[in-house]
């Protein structure tokens, strides 16, 4: 039994369903991240757990007890708000001490605990300031302090880092992680930043339109996205997706897309869900890091023209427009095969925009030391072990997972 269970929980505002979660179990001490784009219901979920909203139906079970009817205080949860929600008229000390005062904790005990927390968060020197007179990072720490000081059963954090600048965000991120390790309190953390989720989470819950799309460890959701949405949402740069036709030739399955064709290896075929056949069309997904690009590659899956070189310093990426190439491609179907040639034709003129129909942009890691030039012709090859196939109609993954956590 988990520490926290959401069972058949639904929340409606007027007639709009904001959240509908059939089953979500969170174990004691876990760091769970609710991840999703804005408006997906993650904050509402958090507020339901906190007791700030009541579910329209369903049960919220904390430690085996249904807590629907309990107030936030009775649930003993602490929450860190996106805008910190520090009380502007109170000094930092009072901000942190308020919940202890409400609980009628003795004065010297309050004093001891506030200072302890302040020490932990390095804000002892700020105790007599007012929130307005502090930087965002400092306010953030105060907000954390307010949550920590009461030893809650659950930490709820609602995009706590979104108002900080990039650098501070990284610092606070690691501090939150350290804090969690140290305190071991079950934490539910809401964010729309997948990187934050990957770094912090024990498990990630991906939400869209109020529903859970996938739950899993960071590497699980990264490696085995259950559908296109998750696939695109997790990982940066985004996973490449290409519409492909499936063709069988000589008992092998081939994928044919814009400027690309590749033979599906046998191990992928065995992972096709239900061991059935692939549909006639699929969406092929592959992460940029799993695409190898070079001037001339052995066993290239396709070729294209570099349209953009993205320098990030540590890692560099190229954008390759497939299906835009001077050379024809070999393949079992010959020149007439594939959508590529149907629309783009051969030798399409230079200067054509990348969004031109019939071409696809493929983002790939660039491992060479030199910069790629725009207009450069390259070949690419996909890492067969890390390709994903999705059903174009439902968006669901067509492959069963490799290492599944659940």
């Amino acid at each position: 039994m988990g520490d926290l269970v959401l069972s058949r929980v639904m929340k409606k505002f007027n007639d709009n369903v904001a959240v509908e979660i059939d089953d979500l179990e969170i174990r004691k001490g876990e760091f769970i991240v609710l991840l999703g784009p804005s408006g997906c219901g993650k904050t509402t979920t958090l507020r339901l757990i906190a007791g700030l909203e009541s579910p329209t139906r369903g049960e919220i079970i904390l430690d085996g007890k249904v807590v629907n009817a309990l107030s936030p205080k009775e649930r003993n949860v602490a929450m860190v708000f996106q805008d910190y929600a520090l009380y502007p008229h109170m000094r930092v000390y009072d901000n942190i001490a308020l919940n202890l005062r409400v609980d009628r904790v003795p004065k010297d005990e309050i004093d001891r605990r506030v200072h302890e927390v302040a020490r932990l968060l390095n804000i002892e020197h700020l105790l007599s300031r007012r929130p307005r007179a502090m930087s965002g990072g400092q306010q953030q720490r105060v907000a954390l302090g307010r949550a920590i000081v009461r030893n809650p059963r659950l930490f709820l954090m609602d995009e706590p880092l979104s108002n900080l600048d990039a650098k501070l965000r990284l610092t606070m991120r690691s501090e939150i992680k350290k804090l969690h390790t140290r305190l071991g309190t079950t934490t539910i953390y809401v964010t729309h930043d997948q990187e934050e989720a990957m770094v912090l989470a024990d498990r990630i819950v991906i939400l869209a339109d109020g529903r859970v799309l996938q739950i899993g460890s960071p590497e699980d959701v990264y490696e085995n996205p259950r559908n296109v949405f998750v696939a695109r949402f997790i990982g940066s740069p985004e996973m490449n997706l290409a519409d492909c036709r499936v063709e069988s030739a000589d008992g092998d399955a081939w994928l044919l897309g814009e400027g690309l064709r590749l033979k599906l290896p046998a191990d992928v075929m065995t992972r096709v869900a239900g061991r059935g056949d692939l549909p006639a069309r699929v969406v092929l997904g592959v992460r940029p890091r799993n695409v190898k690009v070079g001037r001339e590659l052995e066993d290239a899956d396709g070729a294209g023209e570099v349209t953009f070189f993205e320098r990030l310093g540590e890692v560099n990426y190229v954008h390759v427009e497939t299906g835009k190439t001077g050379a024809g491609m070999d393949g079992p179907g010959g020149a007439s095969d594939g959508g590529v040639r149907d629309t783009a034709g051969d030798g399409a003129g230079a200067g054509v925009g990348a969004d031109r129909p019939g071409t696809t942009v493929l983002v790939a890691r660039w491992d060479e030391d030199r910069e790629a030039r725009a207009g450069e012709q390259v070949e690419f090859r996909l890492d067969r072990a890390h390709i994903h196939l999705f059903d174009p109609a439902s968006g669901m993954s067509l492959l069963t997972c490799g290492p599944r956590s659940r």
Partner: protein
Amino acid sequence: MTREIDCTSPGKADSGRRGLSRNAVREARDFYLCILPWLVGFSGLTLGPMLVSFYYSLCEYNILQPPTWVGLANYVSIFTDDPLFWTALYNTAYYTFFSVPLGVAGSLALALLLNQAVRGVRVFRTIFYMPSIMPAVASSILWIWLFNPQYGLVNRALSLVGIKGPLWLADPVWSKPALILMGLWGVGGGTVIFLAGLQGVPRHLYEAAVVDGATTWQQFLHVTLPMLSPTVFFSFVMGIIGSFQVFTQSYVMTQGGPLNSTLFYVLYLYRVAFEFFQMGYASALAWILFVILVTFTGLQLRLSRRWVYYEGDLRR
């Protein structure tokens, strides 16, 4: 883009609407506890008298004797045979149409002025607030003098720019504008509300606006005004309710004249009730005014959703 489960089935959705969760019940209980004093006061001291006055409006009632039922006769004669009713309604609408927007704008402008960090601003604020507590006798004497066609300051000022001022209070055309002008003298009361409202505008919003290169005017338009919109809304609603019930100035200064040009609705109602002892008829007049105001306010409430911004609005 993709969905795992497809959408709601209506049956499910309905089951959620029935009843409230315990937390919602608790919140509702707290709500009713909070408003209890008002609820008691309203139902005990306001609702009863309101209903009684409605009953009176269907009666011939002279206060001194028990009312006698006449049905809709009062309403019928108000609408069919009472030119003064229309006069009073027109005068009041005229007054409201000008005095409310001018009053709101005036108090807001004054509040902005008095929110500046200038030396002695407290003294200035007190001075500007003074007219709204000035005893009616003193202020009416003052304004009668100010509006004096020959010696009054208003016309003297006008003559400086070559305009021959009107008779003001003694001229049926200018008496209402004169009273509107006089009403603006008391904007200090509304200013207090705006001053309080200005304290709620977070400074960082201005900083953000300055960074975005906003001019003072743009800052006002895009920061101050939206943040003050609840106060502006309040002032408009109260302004309309108040000015439809305007009474004292015309009662003290012009007694409705000249030529009934300052016969405002409530002044007329007052006369009917307390000079002619026709409380039934006056009550009918009051209920017509009530319906007008309820309609107006309802309209304002509806419109307000478009332009009033509440930082702490509740999701429902």
